[in-house]
C-alpha cells in the first residue's frame, strides 16, 4: 500500500513538474526565436497592420495568415514570406515585414516585402535580394534593399541600403520558420 502511494506521489510530482515546465516554456515554443546575442519575439501569423501606399492614398491592411518562410535579421526585424513563383534561376517570395530595429521619424514600422532567391550559377553563389518598404509621413515610400547570402549553415550575411534615405549597413539574416528546397 505504501509502495503504491509512493508511486502515486511520484506521478503527481512528475505531472506537476511537466505542467509547470510547460507554463514556463510555453511562450518560447509559441513565438520566440533565438538569434546570436538575443531573442526575437514574433507572431507566426503576423497580426499587424501594414500601410500600403496606392495612388497617393494609404490604406492599412491587416496581416494575419500562414507563411511558408519567416526570416529575421540581427536588428530583430521579422519578414513573413510565401513563395509566389519558381523558375530555373530564381524563386520569388512576397510578404510583409515588421521592423524593430530602425528609427526614422514618421516611418511605418511595418511594410511589404518581395524577395528573390537567386540560384547559384558558375559565376555567383546562391544569394538573396530582398526589397522591403516603409511608408513615411503617410505619403512617401521608403525602400530598403537587403542583399545577402549564406555564411554558414545557420547564418546569412550581407548589406542593407536605403532609398531615398541615404544609409548602408551590414546585416545578418536567419531562418525562423520554413526553409529553402
Amino acid at each position, binding site marked *: *500500500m*505504501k509502495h503504491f*502511494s*509512493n508511486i*502515486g*506521489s511520484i506521478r*503527481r*510530482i512528475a505531472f*506537476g*513538474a511537466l505542467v*509547470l*515546465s510547460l507554463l*514556463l516554456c510555453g511562450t518560447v515554443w509559441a513565438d520566440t526565436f533565438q*538569434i*546570436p*546575442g*538575443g531573442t526575437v519575439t514574433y507572431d507566426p501569423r503576423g497580426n*499587424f*497592420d501594414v*500601410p500600403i501606399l496606392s495612388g*497617393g*492614398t*494609404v*490604406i*492599412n*491592411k*491587416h496581416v494575419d495568415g500562414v507563411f511558408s518562410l519567416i526570416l529575421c535579421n*540581427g*536588428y*530583430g526585424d521579422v519578414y513573413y514570406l510565401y513563395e509566389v513563383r519558381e523558375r530555373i534561376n530564381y524563386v520569388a517570395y512576397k510578404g510583409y515585414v515588421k521592423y*524593430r*530595429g*530602425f*528609427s*526614422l*521619424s*514618421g*516611418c*511605418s*514600422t*511595418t511594410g511589404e516585402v518581395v524577395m528573390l532567391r537567386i540560384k547559384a550559377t558558375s559565376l555567383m553563389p546562391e544569394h538573396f535580394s530582398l526589397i522591403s518598404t516603409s*511608408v*513615411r*509621413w*503617410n*505619403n512617401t515610400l521608403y525602400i530598403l534593399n537587403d542583399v545577402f*547570402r549564406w*555564411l*554558414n549553415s*545557420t*547564418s546569412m*550575411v*550581407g*548589406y542593407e541600403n*536605403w532609398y531615398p*534615405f541615404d*544609409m*548602408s*549597413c*551590414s546585416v545578418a539574416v536567419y531562418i525562423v520558420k520554413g526553409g529553402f528546397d
Partner: protein
Amino acid sequence: MKKPGARRFWATLAIVCFVPVLLSAREAPSDIRQPLTISSVDRVVIIDRLIADRAYENIRAGRPADHGIDFTLLDREMEKYRPELEKFDPAYYVALRDTYERMKAYVSDPDSDFIRAIQNPGSVEFEGRSPLPAAALADTASQAMTAKPANEETDKVSPVPGHRIDELEPLLSDKAKKTLSNIRKMPETPASACEAKIRTIEKEIAAWENSSDRLEAAVMLEILYGMKESKCSGEMKINP
C-alpha cells in the same frame, strides 16, 4: 498515508518553482561582469548589436556604457575572423568594420547620441538604422506614429485610439514637442485666455502644413481641438 506524499508534492513543486528563480538571481550579476567576447563568426557578423545590447544594460544599471567591453579584445577577434569574412566577400568585411567602428565610437564617448538616447529616451532622433538595441526601441509607439484607420484619407490622419500622446512624445520632433509643451501649459481660466492661446497655437501649427511635418501637424491639431472642447471647461486630457 496520503499526507507524506502530499507534503513531498508541495515541497517538490516549491523547489521546481523557486530553484530557477534563485539560479537566475545568482547568474545575473556574474553574467554582467563577464567581458563581452566574440566566440564565433555568427557573433562577429552582429558585433555592433552585441555591443549595443551590453552598453544598454550597462547604462540602465548606472555603469559606464563600455563597462565589460574590451575593444582591444574585440578588435583582435575581428581580425581573427577577417580572412573568413573576406573569403565570403571582401566588401562585407569593410561594411561590417564600418558598422562596428560607428558603434565603438558611440559607446566610447560618454556624450554620444547613443548614450544620451538611452539616458533620456526620445531626446535624440536617429536617422535610419538606429544604433540602439531592440530593447530600447519603443515598437508600439513607433507603430502608432503612422498607423491610422483603414481607408482613411492621408490628410485626415489621427492618433490611434489607445495610444496616449505621452507614449508618442519621444518620437516627436523638437518643434512638435515645444508645441505640445505649450498646449500643456495652456491656461484653464479665463475661457477667453484659453481661446486666445488655442488660436495662437493653431496658427503656429498651421504654418507647418506645407512642409514634411504634416503628420505631426495633424496629431497636434487633433490634440489642440480635443483641448478646445475639454481643457477650457476644466477637464484634463493630457498629463501635465
